């Protein structure tokens, strides 16, 4: 069994694909300095976001200082100067710091005309533990801002990138505390909704994320705006786009300033920057919050927040079907129309009625991921512990499939066969309806991530996401169906073969036709971070033109606007045969009545050994709910008249 951590870390990797900015040597566009210069042209007076350039002393390096044992000493407020020479030279400095200080160590080299491309590393008082590293922050110059956890002697190591060195590679290092001053149009303090800086739809705000000693929890900038019901707004943060290797995120809060409506970090078409869209259903005041993933320990950086009104999708506005679901990921719909959602952190499966009432259906399943109903009406749950569990209609849980490495998603085909995506070897695995392994299909060659979430298409072929694309298996061979600009999670088909694809990182649901043409992007922007979608079913089990989605970040199951759902859902899972039980029995006992396709189906339901036998009959009877088994013996007594 593989550890949960590996599974979840891969999940996170998949969800945050592209979240980490590349550590390239050439800033992509603009620069820190350029951005500051641009901001200085704004209405407010602007001040550099770095330690004040007044130094207690200027200390020149004394070689050798290549190790912590030979480090040169400075005090907070000093500027150190030196040269990286010869190639491979390492200059080490120590400084005594006090717990709680927000330490800033900032290199000035490239901006001062030196050809040096420096790297900085902060070492803990033990002389070994690396606490922080930075390469390029301000053009090629490096900077580390770090909140000191314990008092002691810390070490700062400066190197030339690529072990370069030479007599002209001079530098200065400014040792100080992070100082924050007013930047842009934000009105500090604006760290709470009550002190938010006003913003209007169609406008932009500029500011800086800058944590300091006086702001130990980190800097959060709140912006307040008014929006009317029916408006779909977009909050778009630009910081990394300015060439800064920073990672801002943005969140939207309701009028109470507490309820988080939406959140985005990265991968919404803006690289490390963040952008979200949201459908406003109630006229009122809303709050946008901008901060940084690195806060409270990251370098300060300026940003621009754009607030726009955009056109919503046909699935907007959304409605909340169930709240307080924990962190729901997988979603399946039962034969009576109840929704079943896996609560990732609650280690449980919740059952949500058509009216929205919620109860715990099964508990003790670690980090439930993919969900699907099997041919026997039992719920299959892929767990983060590497096991696929089977949950009876009464909520009793048993280990079912245990031979997959890191299973993540599950789907059941019309013939009852079970498909798993397995991240351990990047494959799809096929099992009989009774859980017997049948075949493995490699998905490495198609690239991307995964295979991740999967669903069975109209032709009965498994479709799966490898990140930004959906592929399908045709006669065992992967074929690309579509590509999207964002990572796709648990998608679903309607009866026309159209694909509803949620993208958590983009914060919306997209709609594609059966050959991958985009029909609506967005289909719905109301969801914050939709993880999985599923079509509803009525009380008879028939699929409806209602689409539900799990919302992991805000712990909800939502429904998109049904007026925007053109087709009912493709029936999912096992499709019971058209023939009767008596015909199935008669066929086994030599009485005929079954077609070749019927025989094949019965075999697939059962043991899939190539012919219809008594094991297949037993499996088929179980699908009807009438077969005795060791686990749940039937009470019915059968008499037979030959």
């Amino acid at each position, binding site marked *: 069994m593989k550890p949960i951590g590996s599974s979840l870390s891969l999940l996170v990797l998949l969800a945050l694909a592209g979240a980490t900015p590349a550590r390239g040597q050439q800033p992509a566009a603009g620069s820190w300095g350029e951005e500051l210069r641009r901001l200085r042209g704004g209405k407010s007076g602007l001040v550099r976001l770095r330690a004040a350039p007044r130094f207690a002393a200027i200390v020149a390096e004394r070689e050798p200082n290549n190790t912590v044992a030979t480090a040169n000493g400075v005090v907070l407020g000093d500027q150190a100067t030196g040269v990286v020479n010869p190639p491979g030279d390492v200059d080490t400095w120590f400084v005594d710091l006090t717990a709680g200080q927000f330490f800033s160590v900032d290199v000035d080299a490239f901006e001062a005309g030196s050809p040096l491309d420096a790297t900085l590393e902060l070492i803990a008082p033990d002389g070994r533990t690396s606490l922080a590293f930075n390469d390029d922050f301000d053009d090629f110059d490096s900077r580390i801002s770090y909140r000191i956890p314990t008092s002691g002697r810390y070490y700062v190591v400066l190197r030339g990138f690529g072990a370069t060195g030479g007599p002209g590679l001079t530098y200065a290092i400014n040792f100080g505390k992070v100082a924050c001053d007013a930047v842009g149009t934000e009105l500090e303090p604006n760290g709470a909704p009550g002190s938010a800086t006003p913003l209007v739809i169609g406008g932009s705000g500029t500011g800086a994320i800058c944590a300091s000693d006086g702001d130990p929890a980190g800097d959060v900038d709140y912006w307040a705006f008014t929006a009317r019901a029916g408006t779909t707004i977009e909050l778009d943060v630009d910081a990394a786009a300015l060439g800064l290797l920073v990672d801002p995120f943005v969140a939207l809060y309701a009028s109470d300033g507490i309820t988080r409506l939406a959140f985005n970090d990265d991968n919404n078409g803006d690289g490390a920057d963040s952008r979200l869209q949201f459908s406003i259903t109630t006229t009122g005041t809303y709050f946008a919050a901008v901060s940084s993933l690195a806060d409270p320990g990251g370098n300060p950086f300026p940003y621009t927040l754009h607030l726009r009104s955009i056109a919503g999708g046909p699935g907007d506005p959304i409605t909340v079907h169930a709240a307080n679901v924990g962190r729901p990921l997988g979603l399946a719909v039962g034969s009576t129309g109840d929704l079943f959602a896996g609560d990732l952190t609650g280690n449980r499966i919740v059952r949500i009625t058509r009216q929205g009432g919620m109860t715990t259906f099964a508990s003790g399943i670690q980090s439930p991921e993919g969900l699907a109903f099997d041919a026997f009406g039992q719920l299959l749950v892929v767990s983060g512990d590497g096991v696929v569990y089977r949950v009876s209609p009464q909520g009793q849980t048993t280990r079912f499939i245990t031979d997959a490495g890191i299973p993540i998603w599950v789907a059941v085909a019309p013939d009852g066969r079970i498909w798993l995506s397995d991240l351990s070897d990047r494959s799809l695995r096929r099992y009989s309806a009774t859980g017997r392994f049948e075949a493995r299909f490699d998905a490495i060659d198609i690239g991307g991530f995964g295979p991740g979430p999967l669903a069975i298409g109209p032709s009965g072929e498994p479709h799966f996401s490898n990140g930004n694309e959906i592929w399908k298996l045709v006669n065992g061979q992967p074929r690309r169906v579509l590509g999207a600009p964002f990572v796709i999670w648990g998608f679903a088909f309607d009866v026309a073969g159209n694909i509803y694809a949620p993208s958590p990182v983009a914060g919306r649901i997209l709609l594609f036709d059966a050959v991958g043409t985009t029909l609506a992007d967005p289909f719905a922007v109301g969801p914050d971070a939709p993880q999985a979608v599923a079509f509803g079913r009525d009380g008879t089990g028939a699929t409806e033109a209602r689409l539900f989605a799990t919302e992991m970040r805000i712990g909800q199951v939502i429904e998109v606007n049904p007026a925007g759902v053109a087709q009912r859902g493709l029936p999912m899972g096992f499709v019971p045969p058209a023939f009767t039980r008596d015909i199935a029995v008669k066929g086994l006992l030599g009485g005929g009545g079954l077609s070749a396709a019927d025989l094949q189906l019965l075999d697939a339901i059962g043991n899939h050994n190539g012919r219809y*036998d008594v*094991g297949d009959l037993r*499996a088929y009877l179980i699908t009807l709910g009438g077969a005795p088994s060791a686990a749940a013996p039937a*009470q019915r007594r059968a008499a037979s008249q030959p």
Partner: protein
Amino acid sequence: MSSARWRFTLLAAVALGAACSNDPTSGAPRAGTLTLRLSTPRSDDGALLFEVSGPPIDTAVVVNGSLQLFTRRADGSTVVGAVVGGLTNGALVTLRVPDVGAAGGYTARVLEVADRQNVLRTSLAGYALTVTP
């Protein structure tokens, strides 16, 4: 047949029947039940397909209510059946027959066995069915 001859024949038949029923040692048929017994080397059998050939069988009923039985008369002398459930050694099916004295004339055969995961046994070695009074 005339009315007189019909009454004579009926009386004769009744008299003959009475005579026979009073004589347990005679070879006349006696309706009753027989038991189809299973001998299995396994403890996780979940379904069994079988065949019983021989004299007529009126009905078949499982001896254990937790089992399900399905049968079909293949021809005048053969019944094919399937039993589904947790099978164990011993009595499996009760056969109602017109002549229990003909028990020795029945031949029972195991055709297929599946385990409780629905997997078909690849070997039927050690399996046997017998029909006993």
